[in-house]
């Protein structure tokens, strides 16, 4: 199962990473993916998550081809 992971704003800059493809066999939910990524890189606690461009809870299920975005608290307007 392959997932596209995107990073935005200060998180993108801190990681020096815009987007990556992750093989995610054995991962069921957003919380699983988050733990996997936190094992690879520093992910601040206040990081928000969207799946396929909508906010997602930790127990949101993952499927092949999903786009999952991680980003800091928003500051628009």
């Amino acid at each position, binding site marked *: 199962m392959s997932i596209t992971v*995107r990073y*935005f*704003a*200060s998180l993108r*800059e801190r990681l020096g990473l815009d987007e990556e493809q992750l093989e995610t066999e054995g991962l069921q939910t957003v919380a699983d993916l988050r733990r996997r990524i936190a094992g690879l890189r520093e992910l601040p606690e206040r990081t928000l998550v*969207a799946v396929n*461009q*909508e*906010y997602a809870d930790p127990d949101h299920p993952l499927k092949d081809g999903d786009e999952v*975005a991680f*980003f*800091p*608290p*928003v*500051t*628009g*307007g």
Partner: protein
Amino acid sequence: MPAYVREQAFDPWREVSEFQARELPAGRFGACASFVGTMREFNEGDDVRAMTLEHYPGMTDKYLEKLIDEAKARWPVLECLVVHRVGPMGPGDPIVLTAVWSAHRAAAFEACRYLMEELKHRAPFWKKETLAAGDERWVEQNTPG
């Protein structure tokens, strides 16, 4: 759809005026409340020389349209307009416009404020400031109100 992300400078009152002329039937609405957020030359006690607004293309449009749907479900409003600037900009540049048309004023006022508060708290935009000395910083969070 009445939510737009703009990479160029925009004139918010021309947007409101033209949108109204195009989309609202004269005589049906009695109220239009609007809000324009503009880039300040100061923030959290520091002078700010420039700003860049990043967003999440795709999610942004979807989220702004969802907000408009929510406002229309909660108040008897006729139409909503949201415009948000992205990219590099300078002090005095308009950043965001929200406008709401309704028959009576309460719905317009309340829905307009709702759109702005929800946009500030949830829409995927991020501000990076360039301070007077040239150093850059990401804005950590919005002012409470």
